[in-house]
């Protein structure tokens, strides 16, 4: 298994440039803002509103974290190195995915200071906070998988980023659309909406079908990425 070789290389490249620091920094600053403003205005020891806003932020953060993952390998010609050493496409794709996911997790772990802060001033209900984090991590994982796939479809980082952003936002706004629709169309919109799925987690509901929804997106896009890499390079 060469997954870890690719993983270490990718993680290193995140932290050797200002990329990971900038993304995590901005992400913490904004989520910190949401947390404090919501806490001050509602005076409630819950994080539902914070998670909702942090989720929407992922629509912007995921493209930035993933847009260079495979595009850079293609445009720098280093894909030829990876594919001619005894490393499988699966190793490359999964290694890169895990690296992006790790950076995302690092940022997320730092936001654990919010619930800890709540603990020092009262006793919040940990149920919704735990499910909220579960949903948030799954949502991030799904957006990152989409971004990884987009980076395998083009040589251009900006295009990969914009496509990821577009798909992420579409998954988000289709939930708003659902509220305006009726009947079958509403069911379908609700079914594919990331917001609808995500909201359950925020109110402390851990629904297996919601978990499955996100895991399916992750697995599907990771495998699609493998196919995209093979298709681009091997034919």
């Amino acid at each position, binding site marked *: 298994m060469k997954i870890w070789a690719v993983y270490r290389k990718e993680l290193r490249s995140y932290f050797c440039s200002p990329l990971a620091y900038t993304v995590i920094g901005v992400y913490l600053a904004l989520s910190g803002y949401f947390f404090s403003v919501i806490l001050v205005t509602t005076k409630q020891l819950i994080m539902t509103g914070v998670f909702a806003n942090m989720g929407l932020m992922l629509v912007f953060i995921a493209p930035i974290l993933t847009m260079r993952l495979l595009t850079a390998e293609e445009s720098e010609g*280093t894909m030829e190195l990876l594919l001619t*050493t005894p490393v499988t496409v699966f190793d490359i794709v999964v290694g890169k995915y895990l690296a992006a996911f790790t950076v995302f997790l690092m940022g997320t772990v730092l936001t654990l200071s919010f619930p800890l802060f709540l603990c020092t001033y009262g006793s919040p209900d940990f149920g919704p906070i735990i499910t909220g984090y579960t949903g948030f991590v799954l949502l991030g994982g799904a957006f990152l998988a989409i971004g990884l796939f987009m980076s395998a479809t083009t040589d251009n980082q900006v295009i990969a980023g914009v496509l990821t952003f577009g798909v992420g936002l579409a998954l988000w706004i289709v939930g708003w659309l659902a509220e305006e629709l009726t009947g079958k169309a509403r069911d379908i919109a609700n079914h594919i909406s990331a917001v609808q799925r995500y909201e359950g987690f925020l109110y402390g509901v851990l629904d297996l079908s919601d978990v499955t929804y996100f895991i399916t997106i992750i697995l599907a896009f990771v495998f699609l990425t493998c196919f995209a890499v093979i298709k681009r390079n091997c034919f």
Partner: protein
Amino acid sequence: MIEIINVTKYYGSHIAVKDLTFTVKKGEVMGFLGPNGAGKSTTMRIITGYMPPTRGRVLIDGIDVLKDPMRAKKRIGYLPESPPLYRDMTVKEYLLLVCDLKGIKGRKKEMETNRVIGISGLEQVTKRLIGNLSKGYKQRVGLAQALLGDPGILVLDEPTTGLDPKQIKEIRSLIKKLAGNKTVILSSHILPEVNAICEKIIIINKGRLVASGSADEISMRLQSRESIYVKAKGDFKKIANTLQKIKGMQSINQISDEAEVLEFNVEFEKGRDLREELFYAMAEMGCPILEMKPNKLSLEDVFVKLTTQEKVVETGEDLGSL
């Protein structure tokens, strides 16, 4: 040993390589020549398992690259046309990464890295960022990467392009140092360069094999032979036996054999025109000729293209030694 058997590669409807067959024996340094766009890089990418051929097989020490890519890839060190480098890494970091990718572990990792740094003359730059290195050093890092893990087979795609004459000399002597216990295939569009390093040469043009042998053999053949391309129906063995008897005939080489249609090249002494005799001989055997054309031009044409580049390099070298 590298065996390329009837390899054909299409990009969409464009043929990049057509029915290429040749063998590089163990310990041999083979020069792979052809003008730009002849299909050299494509062939090398197929050998290294980067892309599969449309048809045909490649065997690396008897291992089919398509069927067992992981084992085949372990035996090959590959330097692509543009060295695949991570600009934001130092030379040492990069080589350690390639060790990881090639599965070189533990104490061997450090030893291997230091060994290739030594061979490639990179001692001075191990801590520098690759992005800041000169073209010559980048090329050497690319070569060092190919040497990691001490693979028995080296595939080097235009290892000297873009280098200045002094660097060209260095890379050449480096490759010469490696020759002997390694099987090397090295592509170039400059004949003298290949001549200086390789015992054996293969020339391709437009994806087809034009000539193979030592440089002297090839140029001898150019001077003493003419060649005709024939497309006909019939059995190759029978045809070859009959045609062999024609006076002045030197060799008959089959190119392909598809759906009863046979393609072959007929080579004969310069100055004789065997076309009439060929026609009657074939007619007598009942083998209709579908197509016949002199193809002396292809090799000559290629040779001219390759040798005209010679002067550029030679004057370049003179400049370098001034």
